[in-house]
């Protein structure tokens, strides 16, 4: 039980450093147990964007936090892919350049996990295979239409 946890924890840790480097284009990320009691210790998150000094997580910018959170979520998904995943505007804090990195990432993982994403970012829409538009032509009543994607997808 403890052995299983330690083993999986190490994998997520290694994954996190990789997903982080991929999304940030460098830098360093780690997970640490904040105590010796493996069964009860909390998990500390260490993040260092490329070129910057390692500092407390709270000093990161809104977009850096958003991208680091995405890296961690994908580190877990990499170890144990779920059949499907529903993500509601998780790239909200990212600038356009980072949204494109996120979209590329999503495409790689979509071979093992089916993604349903709610978004208003063009970069994320471009990564989609299917696009649905939700509107309220009649106030208060939602309607859904299938949208054709341009650029042959």
């Amino acid at each position: 039980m403890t052995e299983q946890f330690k083993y999986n924890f190490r994998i997520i840790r290694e994954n996190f450093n990789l997903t982080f480097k991929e999304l940030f284009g460098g830098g360093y990320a780690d997970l640490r147990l904040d105590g010796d009691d493996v069964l009860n210790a909390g998990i500390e998150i260490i993040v260092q964007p490329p070129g910057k000094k390692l500092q407390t997580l709270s000093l990161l910018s809104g977009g850096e936090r958003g991208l680091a959170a995405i890296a961690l979520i994908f580190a877990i998904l990499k170890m144990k892919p779920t059949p499907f995943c529903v993500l509601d505007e998780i790239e909200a804090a990212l600038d356009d350049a980072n949204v494109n990195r996120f979209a590329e990432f999503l495409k790689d993982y979509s071979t093992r996990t089916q993604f349903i994403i709610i978004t208003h970012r063009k970069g994320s829409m471009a990564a989609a295979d299917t696009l649905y538009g939700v509107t309220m032509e009649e106030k208060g009543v939602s309607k859904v239409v299938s949208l054709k994607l341009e650029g042959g997808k």
Partner: protein
Amino acid sequence: MYLKRIEVKGFKSFADKIELDFNGGITAIVGPNGSGKSNISDAIRWVLGEQSAKTLRGAKMEDVIFAGTETRKPLGCAEVSLTIDNSDGIVPIEYTEITVTRRLYRSGESEYLINNTPCRLRDIQEIFMDTGIGKDGYSLIGQGRVDEILSTRSEDRRNLFEEAA
């Protein structure tokens, strides 16, 4: 296992029945503020067995039933059906296609069905239990909640890791 389609009627802003067909890759849902996008993700959570009205942004579970508009009357029932492809047999039920349905009436009565056969809520919850789906933070991430994985106390974060690991 993957999602094939969802049908929603009477749930939140879906006064008229809507149906979305999913492919195996990436499906994006777009639209203006307040149009109903997050309501679709609420519908998925709800049909998977979510029991907390608060997680669905309501004060009580009855809040998920279409409440009417200035020009439409409220409805008496909310219904969501989710159809999954089970050709890989991940779900230990001998069907290649499984449809789970949940209904809630204003009276407070609920109905649950698997392939149109009445069952209990926990029968639906158990279908997804071993797949890792159903708990927030990792396979179902709500709007404004992605930062939580960084800001929760390190002890709470542990629960998320234990579920995955």
